[in-house]
């Protein structure tokens, strides 16, 4: 069984995000970029399935500029067999990403596609669902447990009411939630081994995917600063203050 894993590069979660002074975006120069944490979880799960003997090959997929190669090497160092790099200098919206994945699915014929439930940059939470619809295959989103047997995935989903267990016939799309697993540490010798693993490079233009810009970003702004609080002496003063603000 072949597993395709989405492996997006985002601004690292430890970075304090700064909006560019002109509001055209967030600062990415000199900023640490790393794998979307949910994608790391997706890759970890795929590797565990391979280690259990369920899967035979794990392929990481990245869509982005030429320098994305170094990022994909991290995925290979973690353990993926090979990588596919779809090269484009433009920002990719969820529908475009889903269409790219569909093309790769047609080419690679995987039985499972594991994606992060969302990327921590735009928090769209759409690509997995869109891919399932375009591919016309089942989807199991927000997975916190995955079991594969008899051509079916039994997936525990994190939903508002608690946990929901569903069965999805393979091939299928699964998106990962935070509690699915804890990704492994990369080992130094594996970084060296990753250098000789193959990365297929595909020009975005050659995929015949229309890059519709359905969404237009007009302005980025930092959250407004919280105004200074007021200390109250006792409950009576608190009630009076709330009344004055018309909240009581």
């Amino acid at each position, binding site marked *: 069984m072949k597993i395709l894993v989405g492996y997006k590069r985002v601004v*690292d979660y430890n970075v*304090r995000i700064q909006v560019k002074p002109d509001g055209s975006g967030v600062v990415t120069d000199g900023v*640490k970029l790393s794998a979307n944490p949910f994608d790391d979880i997706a890759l970890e799960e795929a590797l565990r399935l391979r280690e259990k003997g369920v899967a035979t090959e794990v392929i990481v997929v990245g869509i982005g500029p030429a320098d994305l190669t170094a990022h994909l090497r991290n995925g290979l160092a973690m353990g993926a067999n090979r990588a596919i790099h779809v090269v484009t200098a433009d920002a990719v919206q969820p529908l475009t990403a889903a269409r790219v994945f569909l093309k790769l699915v047609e080419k690679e014929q995987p039985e499972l596609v594991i994606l992060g439930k969302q990327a921590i940059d735009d928090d769209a939470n759409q690509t997995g669902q869109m891919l399932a619809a375009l591919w016309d295959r089942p989807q199991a989103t927000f997975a916190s447990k995955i079991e594969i047997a008899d051509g079916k995935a039994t997936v525990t989903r994190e939903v508002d009411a608690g946990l929901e267990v569903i069965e999805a016939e393979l091939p299928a799309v699964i998106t990962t939630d935070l509690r699915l697993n*804890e990704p492994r*540490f990369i080992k*130094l010798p594996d970084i060296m081994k990753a250098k000789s693993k193959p990365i297929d490079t595909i020009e975005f233009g050659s995929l015949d995917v229309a890059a519709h810009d359905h969404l237009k970003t007009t302005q980025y702004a930092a959250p407004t600063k919280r105004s200074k609080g007021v200390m109250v002496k006792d409950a009576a003063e608190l009630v009076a203050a709330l009344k004055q603000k018309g909240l009581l």
Partner: protein
Amino acid sequence: MSDRETMEYDVVVVGAGPAGLSFAIRLKQLKPEVSVCVIEKASTIGAQILSGAVIEPQPLDALLPGWRDNPPPICVPAGEDEFWLLSKTSGRKLPVPPGMHNHGNFIVSLGAMCAWLAPQAEALGVDVFPGFAAADTIYNEDGSVAGVRIGDMGVAKDGTHKPGYTEGIDIKAKVTVLAEGARGSLTKQLIKRFKLDADSDPQGYSIGIKELWQLPPGRVTPGKIVHSFGWPADTHTYGGSFLYHLDQDRVALGYVSGLDYSDPNYQPWEAFQQWKNHPTVKPLLDGGTILSAGARAIVTGGYQSLPKTEMPGALLIGDTAGLLNVPKVKGTHQAIKSGMLAAEHLVAHGLDSAGFDAKLRGSDVMAELRKVRNIKPAFKKGLWFGMLNAAWETVTGGISPWTLKNKADWSSLHKLGAQEEPKRDYVQRTLAPRDRLAGVYFAATEHDEDQPIHLHVADTRICIDQCTTEYGNPCTRFCPANVYEIVEDVHADGSKGRRLQINAANCVHCKTCDIKDPYEIITWLTPEGGSGPNYQNL
């Protein structure tokens, strides 16, 4: 024999700063077939380096001719120099000392510069590994250094192994090059083991605390370089500020305090914030925002404190050796030069470290330190004596027949009440950050809370039984990140007790505690690789 995984290289370098990267680049330029890797504890190159920084470009010209066509991301040609003496309410502009003229130099972010150097090293075939901490040195049977051991990942606070536990590997090499920066944790062990400081004075340090600000448009004069001394330091504390105007309405600013200060109540972080609120500085910053902040120890012992820089199987280069030029307030050019010298030496001598120390001492790196050797130590006798002496030493080019002694910084602290406490007379501050915790936020420091505390205190009873009364627990004040706290506990039987609490997750890896603690019981160890501050453009 352990069954640890091992990787072998001809040369392993600890630390991807200007010294380590320049060394690796030079080595590959001279002998491409030599295999070399660079280990860096920061999660990404440049994330844990902090400097002013105004650099002299000549060593870069020698290392990477043509770099000016492809400069690092922040690289502003030096413009006008200013030198100020501050009192609490005003300041006087003084003539700029000869060593501090910066015409022809560049203001850079050293972090961004290292992130720019690393891919150039990789292009030459150097393996650069960020996110891995060299936790220990390993030795051959004959006692020579055999390489480094990478720290284990996934160890819980109590020492047990978490599910993701990954044993660190050994990197074996013919030569280990220590380029850890000031007070390197492996260098410290090696100096002790090989008695490298037997013929030198104790090393001296300062602490530099820095912020990067984004200002409202129009205030910045790109290239302008302003240094000051005087307030808020008293005349017996070595302290001074830097303020460098960058491009895109940004300024880099910081305050350096000599760690040879004697007042146990001195707080380097507070001194920095006080200086920011000085009337000559505050109007520039008002209305701006902080982009990034951090702190780092600076090596200042110079010529007379330089340990032997070679031992069997290993070398020291850059600030971990102690090559910074204090009066110039620069070390990057020395770091690059020493890295290049080390590479040239190893290539010429079949990767044998022997003879490097003599080569370094015979080079212009050492000549530069010799000229200024008496300037910093004289400030121990007070600001005015220090200034007069600095003028004499500068005018004569350091020909004085004497060499002033350095003392260890941990020994300079007076006990509580042993001296009249300097009147600090600090002002009410209005500029951000409010306190050290608010400041640490801008360092984006991150340590997995469930890992062993990497600040090892040999005997915490000393903190409570002895230090509280003798020095008043200065660790709670010299740490710029509020790592050390004395907390009161109420025990089950109702009795009260005090204990040292170490907030290791706040640590910005500046090493001040390892240097200044008066009982020498704090040891800074490497935390899990990738932990620590994530500086942006410092």
